[in-house]
């Protein structure tokens, strides 16, 4: 709206000075052909690299019709892969939710020694390759690792079994919730918590009634991203899985196996499940994002009004 207004004013001002209006444009505005070609390039790029592969997954999955498509999910090993994925995400996401909240709270609301180290540590899983994330657990819990022989003596199996998958998933999804919460919590400051404390609220009351409601959308956003990664993780999980069919294969690993067995319809059918998850994640992310923006605006409005 406002730019349109300045535009016309500028035009009238310039035409008044006797300059031809046609060839005029503002210095901040690109010529039409630049704008359109930029738009075309980005749309073309998105279509080529995102939309077409996504459609290809569904096209390949449905190539032999709906029957074989759904039959791929009825296979016991596929069902077990789906169950295992839900289980690992079901453990990893709540664990990281609690951890992320605690870490974000500590980082955003307090000054303490080693804070920057903690922030760096939280980012660690983003920085290192998933293969390494898996290998550290092999080194730790493997038969030739530090704890492996002792665990084996007590008949506890960590890697090449479900606990290893859960640990690897927790590790790679570690930063998502905390990373979402820290900037928001820092922005919000500690005033409301202080007020609640002054009014006699206990620690838990402050958490449940002040802090959590303030960050709930950002928390949800972090959880959605965390969940998407937990279900989709391939590298770290592949290292610790052992690839036992029907037992330690998550959905992404199952897709790889099916593909390697020339079972393309089933591979893409199961892959389409992950693609669907991605689409749902994106939709949910958009909704939550707009809620966060609105909320942030509400918290910021009083201060901007003062300024």
């Amino acid at each position: 709206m406002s730019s349109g207004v300045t535009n016309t004013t500028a035009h009238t001002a310039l035409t008044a000075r006797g300059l031809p209006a046609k060839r005029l444009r503002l210095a901040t505005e690109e010529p039409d052909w630049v704008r359109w070609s930029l738009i075309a390039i980005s749309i073309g790029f998105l279509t080529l690299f995102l939309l077409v592969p996504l459609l290809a997954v569904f096209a390949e999955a449905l190539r032999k019709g709906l029957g074989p498509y759904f039959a791929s999910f009825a296979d016991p090993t596929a069902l077990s892969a789906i169950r295992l994925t839900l289980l690992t995400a079901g453990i990893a996401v709540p664990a990281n939710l609690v951890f992320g909240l605690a870490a974000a709270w500590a980082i955003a609301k307090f000054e303490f020694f080693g804070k920057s180290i903690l922030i760096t540590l939280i980012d660690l899983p983003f920085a290192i390759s998933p293969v390494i994330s898996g290998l550290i657990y092999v080194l730790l819990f493997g038969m030739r690792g530090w704890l492996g022989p002792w665990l084996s003596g007590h008949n506890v199996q960590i890697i090449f079994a479900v606990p290893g998958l859960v640990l690897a998933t927790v590790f790679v999804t570690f930063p998502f919730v905390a990373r979402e919460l820290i900037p928001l919590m820092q922005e919000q400051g500690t005033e409301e918590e202080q007020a609640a404390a002054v009014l006699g609220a206990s620690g838990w009351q402050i958490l449940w009634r002040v802090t959590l409601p303030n960050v709930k959308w950002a928390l949800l956003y972090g959880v959605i991203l965390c969940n998407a990664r937990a279900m989709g993780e391939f590298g770290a999980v592949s290292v610790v899985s052992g690839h036992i069919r029907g037992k330690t294969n998550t959905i992404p690993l199952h897709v790889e196996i099916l593909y390697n067995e020339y079972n393309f319809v089933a591979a893409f059918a199961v892959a389409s499940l992950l693609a669907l998850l991605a689409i749902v994640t994106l939709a949910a992310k958009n909704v939550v994002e707009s809620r966060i923006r609105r909320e942030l605006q509400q918290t910021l409005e009083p201060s901007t009004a003062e300024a």
Partner: protein
Amino acid sequence: MQNSRQEKSGPAPRRYSERFLEIPHIFAEPIPFMCRLVVWRSALGVGLLAALSVLVGCNGAPAKTAGTGSASAVTLLNVSYDPTRELYAEFNEGFTKQWREQSGQVVTIEQSHGGAGKQARAVIDGLKADVLTLALSYDIDMIAEQSDLLPKDWQSRLPNNSSPYTTTIVFLVRRGNPKGIRDWGDLAKPGVQVITPNPKTSGGARLNYLAAWGWAERQPNGGQATARKLVTAIYKNVPVLDSGARGSTTTFVQRGIGDVLLTWENEAFLAVNELGRDKLEIIVPSSSILAEPPVTVVDKNAKAHGTREIAQAYLEYLYSPFGQRLAAKHYYRPTSPEHADPDDLKRFSKIEFFTVDEVFGGWRQAQKTHFDDGAIFDSIYTPGG
């Protein structure tokens, strides 16, 4: 600052709000002391909860994997390499049925497939295999050497060096063989893209390498120097090293990369069958290496799971007429061809074999000279080179 420190060591524990009201100047601090305490305590609690829930998650799960050795139903884990998927999918069904008839016991056979080197590594690291059906005796030697899972003389426990079937290395090319590849020497020609997996992780890849080397060494006027020259030239033509045989097949067939795929004979047949005779063609070189994929029981794991007897029966069944017929059906050369379907046998071309023992003095020696860190392969292959 001074004040808050005094407060901290103050003797009488009071409600935080009380304390807060008494010392209003605490506001001077950027973060009020009281709030810091409250939140820290909660953060600690929440952190503990998180740790607990992770632990519960870990402790809850192994119950599922343990306790498989009961008398009525039993689980057997067969850790195998890439190209045996189809063979064992069918063999396991047959064995399950036979075992139920024979002993009344219901057996579930779990399969794990991957590059043979990688699989051996996983077993050493603690993958609880009851039986191994890997690509090379060397892989199992490694397990025997690096762990106490099975005795070092494992290979003498079953007939034919513990190999119920054999196979070899052949070439898979695009239909019509546009680059005119006929023998090992053609792979070194400039402009020929060769697809083979990484010898560090894949048993088949090591055989590919040794087959090329052995062929060159056995040529008239051949020797170590000519072999090295040929193998160096071949690996210059390799655009990508996958970690396993199946990965290389998909690279060649699905992604359409390369002019020739060096692969197991059975893998080549399978690829042609699954993906079309109109696209691919098998080329059999003048001579190639004899591969003897070995099988064995992992004594320690089988004992712990109570599966020793059934594991032994499982492997012996591979040598039975049923197992031999199935091996031939899935393009392995059976060690007792009389049990196989003659039509299946007709598919195998006559080929001159040489063995690892003949040319390289055994797997250990071959591994040491060619594939160990700093050995010949490392000096001739530079990624992307």
